[in-house]
């Protein structure tokens, strides 16, 4: 990796990355977890044993048993069903907000790092401003201004993610720009666009994936945090963050309420991190087989 990688052998390298990836146990396991979660989310209408919004005054805060595996909440609603339905919203929020943050942040970061000059300085200044806000406070303010809805929540979380990705992508691009192969690409007459997104981007992709996985969990967590100190998706829509938040009110009477959605977040997090690590390992030529 210390030697300059010429542009030509790129496709071959990526092929071998795929090959290695398939042999990586962690990566496969991670993918299984995440796919299972997504499947559960998509299949919620069929899998969920009860209507997630159906209240029952006789079942308030029921302990987990064979009928309600995850117990019931303060309104007598089935927690398992709510966690399943909540996966739809939470994973959606998590994925879309993170994806938006990653895409916007990376594009701006790569362009800024690649061209430098006035564009770069403006981007750096704007990033500094955004990063000078405590992240949570920024989210809180944005949701308060925009109103509490799914879309606005995604916007608020994405906005907090963008500067971090700008900084990372810009830093990596700056480092890549110094490498010989970018010069080589230029001398071959490749367009800037092609160099940036076909040659530079793949080289920072593994780092991006790992960071994105951490951000995704943080996005889901932010949703519950915002619900705790401010606003979130309006009820009765079930979200993991919302269930955790409601669980907090009843933590001493029914700890399972907060526990199960938290474990769901943990599972997604573990899955994504395994994928991230796996991809990184697979693209790391030094990694032992």
């Amino acid at each position, binding site marked *: 990796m210390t030697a300059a990688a010429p542009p030509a052998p790129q496709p071959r390298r990526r092929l071998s990355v795929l090959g290695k990836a398939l042999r990586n146990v*962690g990566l496969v396991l991670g993918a299984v977890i995440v796919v299972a979660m997504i499947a559960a989310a998509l299949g919620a209408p069929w899998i969920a044993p009860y209507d997630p919004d159906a209240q029952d005054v006789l079942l308030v805060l029921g302990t987990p048993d064979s009928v309600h595996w995850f117990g019931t909440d303060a309104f007598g609603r089935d927690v398992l069903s709510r966690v399943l339905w909540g996966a739809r919203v939470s994973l959606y929020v998590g994925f879309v907000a993170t994806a938006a943050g990653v895409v916007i942040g990376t594009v701006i970061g790569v362009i800024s790092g690649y061209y430098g000059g006035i564009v770069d300085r403006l981007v750096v*200044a704007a990033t*500094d*401003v955004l*990063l*000078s*806000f*405590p*992240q*949570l*406070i*920024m989210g*809180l*303010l*944005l949701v*308060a*201004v925009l109103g509490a809805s799914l879309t606005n929540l995604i916007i608020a979380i994405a906005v907090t993610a963008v500067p*971090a990705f700008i900084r990372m992508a810009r830093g990596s691009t700056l480092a890549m720009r110094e490498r010989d192969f970018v010069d080589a690409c230029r001398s071959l007459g490749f367009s800037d666009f092609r160099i940036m997104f076909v040659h530079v981007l793949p080289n920072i992709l593994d780092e991006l994936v*790992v960071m994105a996985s*951490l951000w995704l*969990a*943080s996005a889901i*967590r932010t949703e*519950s*945090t915002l619900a*705790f*100190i*401010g606003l979130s998706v309006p009820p009765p829509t079930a979200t993991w*963050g919302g269930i*955790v*938040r409601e*669980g*907090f009110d009843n*933590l*001493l009477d029914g700890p399972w309420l*907060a526990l199960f959605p*938290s474990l769901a*977040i*943990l599972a997604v*997090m*573990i899955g994504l*991190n395994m994928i991230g*690590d796996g991809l*990184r390992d697979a693209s790391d030529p*030094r990694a032992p087989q």
Partner: protein
Amino acid sequence: MLRFVIKRLLLAIPTLWAVLTTVFVLVRVVPGDPTIIILGDQASEASRMELRQRLGLGKSILSQYFDFMGQILHGDLGRSLATNRPIVDDVLAVLPYTIELTIASLIVGTVIGIPLGVLAAERRDGPADWFARIFSLAGVSFPAFVSGILLLMVFSVQLRWFPVISSANAADPLERLRALVLPSVNLGLLMVAYVTRVTRSGMLKALGEDYVRTARSKGLPYRIVVWRHAFRNVLVPIVTVVGLYLGVLIGNAVLTEIVFNRPGIGKLIVTALNQRDYTLLQGLMVVSAFAIVVANILTDLTYGLVDPRVKTQ
């Protein structure tokens, strides 16, 4: 070095200005005003209107903005709309709590995160690696208010080791330290995942470096090779993460502050926002943005300490 610090502070002025302006605009776009807080919910519309005028909220946004900026330029953060107390007093009252919590959490985060990361790297793909990685993720997966209550239930109510109310005996230094333990663990856990992760990948890289082989060829015990030779080279990315986290912690401390009943900038910001105490909110944002700028400068200075290749003038 002093010149470097001064230069950085001057460079931060436009950033602070932009932060302030953004806050100023955002809080005035949010519906609601402080009159309900001040007058109560039985007040008539007329008396609320009258109060709005008196607080200067009836003026045009632009003139409010210039008033505010003028005040800031004179180094005056103004008075709280809700309590009429000087904002500087409120800030100074909570700042020590915020600083001590931030530092303690950084210590917890690194003291847990770094050994976990090193262990994970040494035992790559072994059970220890898996444990370290999953354990570190638990910290980011559980919202701070849930983990905080769990800590309180076990260590404060069952074991009675630490107080539930952090700020109860603030005058006594030992008690204060005791009260700091759980909150800093709770907040520090948030950082563990990132520190572990950066340490692990840094160590994996470092352990494969030629200089580690050189160190081993000298016949140094493995511990020394790992900590003196490999780990020293991972300090730069760790410092980066820790520096970035200084800012994150200031904002995210609010949940910990609420659950553990600690005063702090984060909690004050949320209250100010909830009460629409515009002046207090603006003042606090100045303080927290400034704190982040200082944190960044500290980070850069630390680079110079941990890596001889970085020059700080």
